[in-house]
């Protein structure tokens, strides 16, 4: 009964990321798309949050949004997905929580 949390806002001007991380359970998924992929920038405060502690969730990001912003996500163990894979993830998890 796990949840896929979808974030779309930049971590620098929204509390989405920290609030989302606080209520995620083990086995949940975190999908970053749009400006939210800025959280993958190595050394950023948001990336520290993603790396901090033991990660008990799966981290995904929309590949085209990562590439478009020239972000090197290699330092974080993130699974880059395209739109069809994004859709498949939405189906795989019991529910989808899309943060606004």
């Amino acid at each position: 009964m796990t949840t896929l949390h979808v974030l779309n806002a930049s971590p620098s001007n929204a509390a989405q990321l920290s609030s989302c991380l606080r209520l995620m359970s083990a086995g949940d998924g975190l999908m970053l798309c749009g400006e939210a992929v800025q959280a993958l920038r190595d050394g950023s405060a948001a990336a520290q949050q993603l790396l901090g502690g033991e990660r008990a969730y799966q981290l995904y990001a929309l590949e085209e949004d990562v590439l478009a912003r020239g972000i090197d996500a290699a330092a974080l163990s993130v699974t880059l997905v395209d739109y069809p894979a994004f859709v498949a993830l939405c189906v795989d998890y019991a529910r989808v929580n899309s943060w606004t």
Partner: protein
Amino acid sequence: MAKSVLLISRHAPWAGSDAGEALDIALAAGAFDLPLSILFMDDGVLQLLEQQLPRMLEQKDLSANLQALPMFGIEQLYVAQQCLNLRGLGDSCLAIAAERLDDQHIQQLLRQYDYVVTL
């Protein structure tokens, strides 16, 4: 069996239309007997405070809608205790009765619903 919904309301009542729209979702769900609970978190907790004058900002007063929730069959209101604490409202008296939950109980809460809608 109707699918259950947890609505997470994260926005202040006087900052745009999100808080009002979240309440509209709740009232519509209630009108259709959909099992729905609301969790107030982040700035959404500010919706529960007393003595607000949204008309000063030409915003709609949501408190009447909040008071009406039980009439629409929405009995379960939750509020994130840590979000109250962060805003200096840890022990504040809330205008609307809501059960205070810590993060761990919120994690459990999410798993109990078929759908989660965050606004």
